[in-house]
């Protein structure tokens, strides 16, 4: 990431609790894969074929690698690459690690603001803010903000959009 970015980076990061949520998601995923591999160890006898022994160890290695990736690496990486900002006139986000996507939507063209809370998000006190415009492509989504922050942002954007809305869509 040494090359200069085409546009500037938004300044705010998500709630730190998002890392915990992603770790929890990773733990659930690891558990699922672990159960599948464990069932394979227990239920498929060694003498069922020559490929069983290597398959057992490959499965175990996969679960281990996935656990490291999903619990230690991915949450922090995701936290680093997600950035957002609300300026006086626009909402601005940056997502993606390999392919990076910056999205900027002017508040004057905002049509609806949604705050959604998934099951895990409710456990961690987080919420996702989605800002929709007339274009199917021009949707801004900020995942995993503190519930209070999310509500405040949604309220602020909706209020301001009403004030400075222009007729053109």
């Amino acid at each position, binding site marked *: 990431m040494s090359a200069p970015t085409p546009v500037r980076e938004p300044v705010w990061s998500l709630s730190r609790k998002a890392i915990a949520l992603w770790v929890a998601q990773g733990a659930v995923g690891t558990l699922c894969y672990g159960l599948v591999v464990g069932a394979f160890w227990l239920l498929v006898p060694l003498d069922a074929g020559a490929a069983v022994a290597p398959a057992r160890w490959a499965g175990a290695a996969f679960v281990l690698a996935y656990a490291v990736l999903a619990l230690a690496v991915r949450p922090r990486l995701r936290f680093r690459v997600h950035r957002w900002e609300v300026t006086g006139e626009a909402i601005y986000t940056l997502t993606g690690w390999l392919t990076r996507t910056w999205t900027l939507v002017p508040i004057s063209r905002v049509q609806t603001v949604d705050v959604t809370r998934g099951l895990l998000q409710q456990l961690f006190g987080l919420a996702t803010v989605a800002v929709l415009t*007339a274009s199917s*492509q021009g949707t801004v989504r900020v995942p995993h903000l503190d519930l209070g922050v999310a509500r405040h942002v949604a309220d602020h954007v909706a209020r301001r959009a009403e004030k400075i809305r222009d007729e053109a869509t």
Partner: protein
Amino acid sequence: MTRLTARRTSPRVLLVHTLTFRQARSVVPVALAVIAGRGLQGSPTTVVALVVGVTALSLLWAALAWWRTSYLAGDTAVVLTRGLVSRSVRTVPNDRIRGVEVEAPPVHRLFGLVRVRIDAAAGSVASEDEELVIDGVLRTEGDRLRGQLLSRRAVVATEAAGRHSAPEPVEEELHRFRNRWLLYSPLVGSYLVLPLAAVGALFRLLDEVPDRYVPRPGQLIGSPDLSDGGLVLVVAGGALVLLALGAVLGSAVVNWRFRLVLRGGSLIAERGLLTRRHTDLEVDRIRGCAVSEGLGMRLVGAARATALVTGLGDAARRGQLLPLGPREDAWQLTDLLVPSPGALQRHPAAARRRRLGRAVAPGGVVLVAGAVLTATAGWWPLLVAGAVLTVLGVPLGLARYAALGHATGPTSFAVRSGWLVREHVVLQRRAVVGWQVRQTVVQRRAGLATVQACVGAGQGGYAAVDMAAPEVAGFTRAASGSWASALAG
């Protein structure tokens, strides 16, 4: 002024629906199955009785439907009530009407009837439900409805603008389709598909008919000698000619006597040989224009122009300004509606390298696979195919690069891309409802970025592919409002 009583559609629509078996159509597959099963052993009287019965049933059905359907075009809304048993009432407020389309399918024309479609699409997501259809009113009533609905809309608009007297609308014909432009059709992909689709439908129909009624080609003309190369050539040539003729014919059916008229604040397009359609576009809702030229069209200098209109359902068809014609005419229309932002700026050399790389890569993969196969199994055709593909990738990449460009002007901006269909889109500054900048790993190393303008019309977004990364902030700022300066460092 207007009597606010609900009206029925014209009773003549009964004849139309009986003739087209609109309601009885669902019975036809069952009847066909019964006939196929019993093998039509009955005497001609049974057949006649069957036909009479179905027709009577259809007439009864149509009559009931007509009796239970009524519409009301009031001062504030249009209300359509229908349904035989379960009633449905659909209301469209007048200020939400985006367009009124009057169409006259062939059978309707026979009885002097039209079908009025009232479009109230809300967002860029079009759905059937956002349309209100009044089927089967007299032509005069259809024109009256259109006039009333659109003038009411215009009154709302002028009141909003603080004016009191609307000037008498002046009609100005912008252009008229010339029949010789039909000759372009065989070079346009979508028209070439038309005859193919017709052939496909024919084969499906043949599939439905029991086998013993289908003549075998072999029985008719004997078995032809396929080893004769000349015959194959003649057949292929004949098929090509037929395809071209079909394309011209299909294009004529759709585009016959197309004319575009500017009346008041609306663009009115009229078209169609069998089904005549009037489509209304509000000039105020036009956010931009797209001029697209397919590969074949570029050879002869043909193009098509489409208006990008906000909140228009079925925009690809209804937004057409020039379905097919010379490039100069397409640009003349586009410049009239959206001021031109000037000549396009080329994209940097890194963009050419990226286009070339992407065009050559598939051929390269085949080439490597071919080399491996040649070395291991001595099978060389894949190697040759890979080499040919790789070499062909070079002109393809260069052509794709040549299509890239962007420009900004005082009130509008433009982007262009595409090779199979090259699309040059000119958009007003106010059209932009958001920006999306994307950069892949490869683009980051090459100092490029793809900038997409999100627009509440047309496809929803139009991209300037592989622009020089340092130019992005300047471009977005110049192509939209001051809010875009949030992107600049």
